[in-house]
């Protein structure tokens, strides 16, 4: 059992929690149970990647409320909704907010398990993406202010001469800055640098 098999069940119906835990455990998942959203939030965050199987209609904080909270937090946990009383507007809202699936009770084990696997994969992807971005951000942090300015202009596709004119420097200085940026960001080509800048969300900052 590795960590990528972590499933979190949140439902106010304890008997169902029990049944689902048995099922998922037999399937080889690592299962944690909570009877309310508040209880889940109060507990320590489960390691990512992981998939939450979430009941929508619970007293107090509903499933959608919890989803909103987790999205705002930037969590990489995937969410599969499992509800007894699901309607279309509710499912649309859930899916728009990034839910993997919206299942209704009673659920077939195959459907639930395939959704959970999808969720775990999505969570892992999110996690991976998050790790890469963190790495790139770390490299970006090593740049000086001037180098960051140069990076911005370069990724906008401006030639050295024009960048020099904009910053009030000679073209030769810009060339030096540019090669340093390439080195620090470990970019082998201009195209690679542009992709990195895009993932960090730098190009969009046009001011």
């Amino acid at each position, binding site marked *: 059992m590795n960590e990528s098999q972590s499933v979190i069940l949140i439902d106010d119906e304890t*008997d169902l929690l*029990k049944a*689902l835990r048995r099922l998922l455990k037999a399937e080889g998942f690592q299962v944690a149970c909570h*009877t309310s959203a508040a209880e889940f939030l109060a507990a320590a965050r489960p390691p990512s990647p992981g998939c939450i199987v979430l009941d929508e209609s619970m007293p107090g904080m509903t499933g959608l409320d919890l989803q909103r909270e987790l999205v705002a937090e930037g969590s990489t946990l995937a969410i599969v909704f499992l509800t*007894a*009383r699901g309607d279309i507007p509710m499912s649309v809202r859930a899916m728009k907010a990034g839910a993997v699936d919206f299942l209704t009770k009673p659920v077939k084990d195959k459907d639930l398990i395939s959704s959970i696997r999808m969720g775990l994969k999505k969570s892992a992807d999110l996690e991976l993406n998050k790790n890469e971005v963190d790495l790139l951000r770390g490299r970006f942090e090593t740049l000086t202010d001037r180098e960051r300015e140069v990076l911005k202009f370069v990724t906008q596709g401006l030639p050295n001469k024009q960048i020099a004119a904009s910053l009030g420097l000679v073209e030769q200085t810009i060339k030096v800055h540019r090669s340093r940026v390439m080195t620090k960001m470990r970019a082998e080509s201009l195209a690679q640098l542009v992709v990195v800048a895009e993932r960090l969300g730098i190009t969009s900052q046009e001011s």
Partner: protein
Amino acid sequence: MNWVIVAWTGATSASLMLAAIHLFVWIRNRKAWASLMFCLMAACTAGMAGCELAMMRVTDVNQLGAILQWYNLSRWAVTLALIGFMHFYLGAGRPWLELTVIGLRTLALLLNLFVSPNAYYSSIDGLNRIIFFGQAVTVVEGIPNPLMLVGQVSMLVLAAYLVDTTWRAYTAGAYNRALRVGSSSVFFVLALSLQTMLVLWGVVEAPIMASLFFLGIVGVMAFELSEDMLRSTRLAENLQQREVDLRRERKLTDAVFQGAPGLLFLQSQDGVIRRWNKRPANPSEVIETKIHDFFRKEDHPALSESLEKTFSEGSANFELDLLHSDGSASRHFFSTVQIEIGEKPHLIGIGIDVSAEHALGLELALQKEKLARVSQIASMSELSSSLAHEINQPLAIILSNAEAAQRQLELPVPNHNELRDILKDIVAADIRAADVIRRLRSILQRGQPVLKPVAPSSLLNNVLRLLKTDLDNSGALVSKKIPKRLPNFLADRIPVEQVLINLIKNALEAMHGNGTRGKSLILSCAAEGSGVRFSVRDNGCGLPESGDWIFEAFHTTKPTGLGLGLKISQTIIQAHGGRLWAEVNKGRGASFHFHLPLRPETT
């Protein structure tokens, strides 16, 4: 100038003139018998005066005899006319007295005809010329005839008759007429009798001058009759004024009638309308308009009943459709009262158009009915959706448990303990599902609730068992307050349990945001009055506002839910003849109570 001729011819012409006037009056008004009698009397008086004047100038005894015959005829007629006048004018004479006078007078007339030379004198000695008022007139010289007494007696009886008639008229209320006509005629008749006797017995020397006395009576009568005429003229004038007043009054009432809104009518007891302000929709074949013509045939019995009630009780109020002359109809409110007109019971009624209010009332009723239907449908849908949810839970539990068991069995070494637990849970969930279905069936089976004796404690315990999961999850501190001795009550168990479940679930939701304060749920039951009271008390967020409006359909304070739970609960409790109410706690939270009678009144 001969004064005697002037006096007697004057009397004659005056009498004739008066006779002519009243003859004319009688011709114009044939019912004026008094005028005819007066005319006759005046004419005969003129005749008498003529005869007397002739006798005063006679020179031959034979000629005198002939004149006396005419004279007697005139006096007979005068007497008859006088009696006739009194009879018609005063209308108070005794018939037998009248007949006696006429009889005696007729006898005197006949005696005069057959006795020689006449009834006044047994023998006539000759004719004397005497000086009367400075004029020489002829008087008869002779021995008075005792038969003359008949005439005198007749005069006295006449006088007696006149006195009697006058008195009777006076006491009957005709004071002025009796005094003037009656007393003057009595006076003149008596005076005439006296004068006649004095002359006949030779005490006084004078010619026969009875006509002058009768002229006196005629004068008084003429005065009286003209007085009557004046009075009738005045009366006519008054009448005219009255008529003008009446016409004005009539115009006013017409204006009132025509101006009245709706229908205003006056009818007699036989249902015929005397006055009304509207044309009836279906005028009846006969000339008379009946109030029924304003109404539809099928409304006639109700109308008749109300009208009869008006006549028997004095007034009535009712509401019916009034037909208009264009065939349309509109709802009117009628108020009728009984009034007396000319001592006959009549009915005056007014009808005011209330079609707008009526339509509004109908629409309101319709809307209410619609709302009731909608809320019924909604409550059914809410009920079925909540039951679907409740049945889905155990099904989901069973399915997942069964699938888990299948996986266990596929393992090389299945965990038997695990399998046993799974099967136990499956059985429990199955029982739960069956219970939900049983409830659903009992709710859907509308009609007479099945009343069975229910022990309050067992009801409460059953509900707590059903809600165990919810209560455990909520973490609320549940305390029960049930006295040992409580009477059983008759109820349909499942709906009442459902009410308690609803109230407890509401309480749990109300306490959801309690946080560190902790949740406290107090369930109690007590005998109260002739019933049992259940109470659910929480320390949650309480009621938004106190008032019955929380029991209204579609009212909700929860983000989910249709707001029918309390409404349905109330319906169930009311169906048991009980009462459901809420109150805000002094500290925190709210309490819901319901009171059920031991035996609901089955109606």
